[in-house]
């Protein structure tokens, strides 16, 4: 982790803390806003990091947010950075929007499509945001926490 990168990141992140690599596999965690996401991504890619993974956590029930999690890693020395960006919205929220970074890291293209179909997060300016894994006529977001609860299914079976 170079100091220069941290300095570049500093204005765009609201928090940045070390993480125990041995136990978590992550070197550093950052929190940013949706507006600054592209800048953060640019900073990492500019420093020679690659975009590794995009995921999402459904925290609508507890914290009224949908949390996007990006990891960036260096191919030369292992240096994994986890970046959080929260989208506000509770259980009743109709849409979740986030900026697309697929123009910066082309690998994000499919991962954003997957997040879109699994969580219903719309990525603005994505070249072709359509369903990836599910049938084209699927109308649900399977990885949202309120979809397909086992308790619901068992209740139905009874």
């Amino acid at each position, binding site marked *: 982790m170079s100091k220069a990168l941290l300095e570049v990141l500093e204005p765009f992140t609201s928090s940045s803390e070390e993480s125990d690599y041995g136990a978590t596999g992550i070197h550093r965690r950052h929190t940013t806003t949706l507006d600054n996401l592209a800048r953060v991504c640019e900073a990492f890619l500019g420093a020679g990091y690659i975009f590794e993974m995009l995921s999402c*956590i459904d925290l609508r029930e507890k914290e009224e947010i949908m949390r996007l999690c990006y990891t960036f890693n260096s191919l030369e020395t292992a240096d994994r950075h986890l970046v959080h960006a929260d989208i506000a919205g509770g259980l009743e929220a109709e849409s979740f929007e986030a900026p697309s970074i697929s123009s910066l890291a082309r*690998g994000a293209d499919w991962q954003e499509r997957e997040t879109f179909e699994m969580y219903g997060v719309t990525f603005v300016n994505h070249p072709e945001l359509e369903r990836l894994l599910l049938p084209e006529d699927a109308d649900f977001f399977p*990885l949202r926490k309120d979809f397909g609860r086992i308790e619901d299914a068992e209740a139905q079976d009874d």
Partner: protein
Amino acid sequence: MTNAVPPEATPGGGDGEVYSLNMGPQHPSMHGVLRLLLDLKGEEVVKAKPVVGYSHRAHEKMAENRNTLQFLPNTSRIDYLSGMIYNLGYCQAIEKILGIEVSERAVYIRVIANELNRISSHLLWFGTFLLDLGGITPFLYSFDDREEILDILDQVTGSRLTYCYGRFGGVTMDVDEDFLARTTAFLARIRERLGMYDDLVAKNVILRERCINVGVISTEMAKSYGVTGPSLRASGVVYDVRRAEPYGGYEKFDFDVPVLHEGDTMARFHIRISEIEESCKIIEQAIKGIPEGAILPKKMPKRFKIPEGEYYFAVESARGHFGMYIVGDGTDVPAKLKLRTPSFSNLSAMPEALAGTMLADTIAIVGSIDVVMPEIDR
């Protein structure tokens, strides 16, 4: 699905020269259920669009509904060709989170099992890749060798393909002298056969014509798409999770990370063949150094509760960087398990790599990056 033409693939724009071709999901060289929508101009590919999801099995949702132990058998079915690596990788991730110590003997057994699995995966790739190029016999030869590995692993794990050999803290069954002797014998056999493969296949004029300078993935492109594994190493980047973030005792072993800079199909071919050799080297060292001892800790917790927090652990599968992003909430059911699978990223680079190639090359290129569909669809 031989004659189904999807409505969205009908050529537009009034350019009568471009027509569309639907390949898959049932097509002999689509490695299962990949579907490619190709816009062709004669035999030249103008645009390629992969359609995936035909073997989506909701692994990630299942992980949120099952506890850590219940999810264990799922892992080897995500990528059935390197099931051992996935299975043991998942075990290692949970062990690191919970701080469970793995005995030295189990570590060595895991390394042997991992590398045998990697060799078998590469052998299968070798066979199917040549099948894609029209050579049928190499496929059966490589399966012959692969069967040896499956037999050896069958002996200790009880299964041929979808292993569930790992347990949190070790492995289920101990290996015996017979296993080690058979593995040693296999190493001698595969080294001899690799020479033959090289003579018969890599030096074949037709194969060289078909592979050299075909489907070049540049270093920049590979990095941008997050391509990993042999495909990345064929594009000139030294990146191997076993070396970059040593896990499961790999730091103890001496092996090279083969790298080529051409980035073409032939380079990917050679990288995999040299990786088989490197795996042989690792197994040899592991057999030599395997200590006596227990394979599982004496006392184990009944439930494996994941403390609150976020974790990311990666292993090097036969196809590249397999990452598990786990979010714990204090219970033994993870709040989130994201599987970052290598073929997913590797395949996402295909539209760019395929544009402008010939139809026959399309098959060769998709074959050369070694996709396993359930791993992409999860």
